[in-house]
């Protein structure tokens, strides 16, 4: 009997302990439900939490940051003389306006009055000069470095900046947008960045969050949001759980599967990722040096079926190295240049000397599920024409060093995006011998067309036509098996409005507001 009493006593003790633990957790409860039903409650403070999948784990110095995820956030902090808008145009930022001389060699940027840095200092010509010089000296972006080496002189004139180029550069404006203007005599950019943007950097807590606050001294329209906390989730499932539980107001770059399993009633916006996903083929390796083989692969692959299987049909076919948001250059006709045709693929393979097909290794970075899903479907589709692709998954870092830098691969499936808003950001890499030409593509016609597109003697229309010709050549010679620009889903708290998709990999917080 006494034993039972003892047992009962102990059991009650344990239970009480457990319940105590739970009761302690109750206050959390109320916050959980209030964030969970945001529309039912007027927000007291204009604060939002944005979930991001990768830490801002590089230098925050505007000329040193490399990760797309870092640039995506810091877009709100830094500005150049001009900056891109959501339509892909360049609008004046630190400069009040701009004019280009008729020979295309002189750019005049009158400085805007009353532009101050986040540290309270006024922005002057000296700061602009310092920014251009520092950027030219230290930038890690090779295309910006190349563009700035073309600058002959920067001088002050009537309170404005006059930049003279050695040779005209049709992309100079977009390069100027990449030269973020920073204060002279400030050396803390790597960890405490200071710019002129609508938001100022407050703090970074490693792998926890990055906090931005509205910059009240901003010259332009003040953002509606007072504070944006980017919360970092290195695990995709944890990010999704946090989104679904209502702990986050905004998460971008979701997949169709995630969107479909979301149950918290958030609004879903669909855009595109602005990248070109393709099966990139190493032209230095047999049989991909043979154009007929590459064309056969293009016919063998059924992009529509792949989109239907992997993303319920979301995503846009590309057909060449340009994504649809770049309307000026994108040619929708190229997307259907190689309709699905198994017989034609077999005939071409036979002509190329591979009547029984061949086998190769398809190396794919494992960190990004959509690429892996696409690759899995492609492997099955290729079997129909007797081509045996062996899927090899590698870590992203291994992919960068072995496949990208080492060029030690047969075929790979990834997406390339544009680091600046220019056609050359997508197309320079396929010029013979370019440092970024990982597939070793070499085509004299392409090189000529690209050089013509870059030739300042041509008008803008002619240049555009040459860029489009470049895209056609890539498509005709089946440089790669071009697939799609992935759908980009954004889940957003229904009380928030004003989200804008950009043709670049950025997220603009200044346009968001609570209803």
């Amino acid at each position, binding site marked *: 009997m*006494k034993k039972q009493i*003892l047992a009962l006593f102990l059991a009650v003790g*344990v239970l009480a302990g457990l319940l105590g633990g739970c009761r302690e957790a109750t206050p959390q409860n109320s*916050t959980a439900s209030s964030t969970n039903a945001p529309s039912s409650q007027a927000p007291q403070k204009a604060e939002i939490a944005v979930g991001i999948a990768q830490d801002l784990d590089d*230098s925050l110095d505007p000329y040193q940051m*490399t990760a797309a995820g870092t640039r995506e956030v810091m877009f709100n902090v830094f500005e150049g003389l001009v900056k891109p808008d959501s339509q892909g145009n360049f609008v004046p930022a630190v400069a009040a306006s701009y004019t280009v001389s008729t020979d295309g060699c002189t750019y005049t940027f009158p400085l805007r009055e009353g532009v101050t840095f986040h540290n309270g200092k006024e922005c002057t010509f000296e700061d602009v000069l310092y920014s251009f010089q520092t950027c030219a000296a230290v930038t890690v972006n090779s295309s910006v470095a190349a563009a700035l080496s073309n600058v002959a002189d920067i001088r002050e004139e009537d309170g404005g900046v006059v930049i003279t180029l050695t040779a005209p550069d049709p992309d100079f404006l977009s390069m100027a947008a990449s030269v973020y203007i920073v204060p002279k005599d400030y050396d803390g950019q790597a960890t405490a960045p200071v710019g002129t943007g609508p938001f100022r950097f407050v703090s970074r807590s490693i792998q926890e969050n990055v906090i931005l606050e509205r910059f009240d001294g901003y010259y332009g329209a003040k953002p509606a949001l007072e504070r944006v906390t980017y919360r970092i989730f290195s*695990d995709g499932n944890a990010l999704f759980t946090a989104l*679904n539980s209502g702990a986050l107001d905004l998460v971008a770059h979701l997949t169709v599967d995630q969107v479909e399993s979301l149950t918290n009633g958030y609004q879903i916006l669909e855009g595109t990722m602005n990248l070109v996903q393709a099966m990139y083929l190493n032209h230095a390796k047999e049989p991909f040096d043979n154009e007929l083989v590459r064309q056969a692969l293009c016919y063998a692959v059924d992009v529509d079926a792949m989109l239907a299987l992997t993303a319920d049909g979301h995503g846009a076919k590309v057909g060449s190295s340009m994504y649809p948001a770049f309307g000026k250059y994108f040619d929708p006709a190229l997307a259907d240049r190689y309709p699905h045709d198994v017989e034609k693929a077999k005939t071409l393979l036979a002509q190329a000397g591979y009547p029984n097909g061949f086998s190769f290794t398809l190396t794919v970075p494992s960190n990004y599920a959509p690429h892996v899903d696409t690759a899995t479907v492609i492997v099955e589709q290729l079997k129909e024409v007797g081509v045996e692709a062996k899927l090899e998954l590698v870590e992203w870092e291994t992919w960068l060093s072995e496949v990208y830098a080492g060029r030690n691969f047969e075929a790979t499936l990834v997406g390339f995006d544009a680091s600046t808003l220019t056609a050359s950001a997508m197309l320079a890499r396929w010029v013979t011998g370019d*440092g970024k030409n990982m597939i070793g593509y070499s085509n004299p016609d392409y090189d000529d067309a690209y050089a013509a597109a870059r030739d300042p003697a041509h008008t803008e229309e002619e240049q555009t036509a040459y860029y489009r010709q470049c895209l056609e050549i890539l498509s005709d010679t089946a440089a790669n098996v071009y697939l799609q620009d992935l759908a980009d889903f954004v889940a957003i708290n229904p009380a928030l409005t004003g989200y804008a998709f950009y043709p670049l990999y950025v997220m603009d917080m200044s346009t968001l507001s609570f209803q």
Partner: protein
Amino acid sequence: MKTLFSKLAALIITLFLVSALAFFAFALIPADPATTMLGSEATPEAVAALRAQLGLDRPLPVRYFEWLTGFLRGDLGESYLYRMEVGQMLSGKLAVSALLTMLSFLLTVALSIPLGVLAGSVRNRYLDAAAVGLNQLVMSVPPFFLGILACYGLGIVLKWFTPGAYVSPEKDFWGCVRYLIFPALSIAIPRSAMAVKLLRSAIRDQLGQDYVRTARSRGASEPSILLRQVLRNALLPVITFLAVSLAEIMTMSILIEQVFSIPGVGQLLLSSVSNRDYPVVLAIVMLLAAWIVTIHFLADLLSRLADPRVRLG
């Protein structure tokens, strides 16, 4: 005393070997910080320049020697990626991981001792079999899986907490503790199941001893025998087990941090490994190794002190 010194020496040699192993193992895995940092915009020239800037173009033994001398001076170096002092980066993370470890440990103790005594004193054959079976089941559930269940069941369905809504201890200490209770439970439940198993069999063992029969014949009450005499003897092996648990809990929290998105040492370790941020990885590996080796050393010492049969040197 002699054993103590030789054990201390072994401890230091172990740490030294761990550091060398960790350093040179990284030379064997593909990818390096420069290509990782520059991404798909990299050109061969930019990669070479960055490698030179980070000092990666120098021979491995030289770099190891530099790191080792710095480490002995207390200088952990600078993170390649964050461009911050590693020591500064770690201090905040350590507080979080230490808090999680302590909570898990306290919960393990709080759960295992009462439940162990309960399990040890149950006389009903069927109840005992059921308890042993349940215990076995709980013991074999990995903490990260329990964590996923907790996030879904307690978080999304019951809304006891919001998964992902972590607050840092500097900002709101009790809010942080409240959040950490759930990951700590995920670690503590399987851990305490092991301790319960140990305690149950130790109590069973002691209950069969002569002194218990003597006590009963003197008319001592069953609870008093159990709590005053049996438990004291039965706890000895359990204490050693719990002490060693402190080391294991720290390593388990690495996975649990991932599940609950807690920005502790574990998350930093995982991301630094994939980013090839060697200075950070080495610092954390050394820290974990030192923790584990020290805990084992102390547990050994503790069991020697507690049990006069295991004499010290």
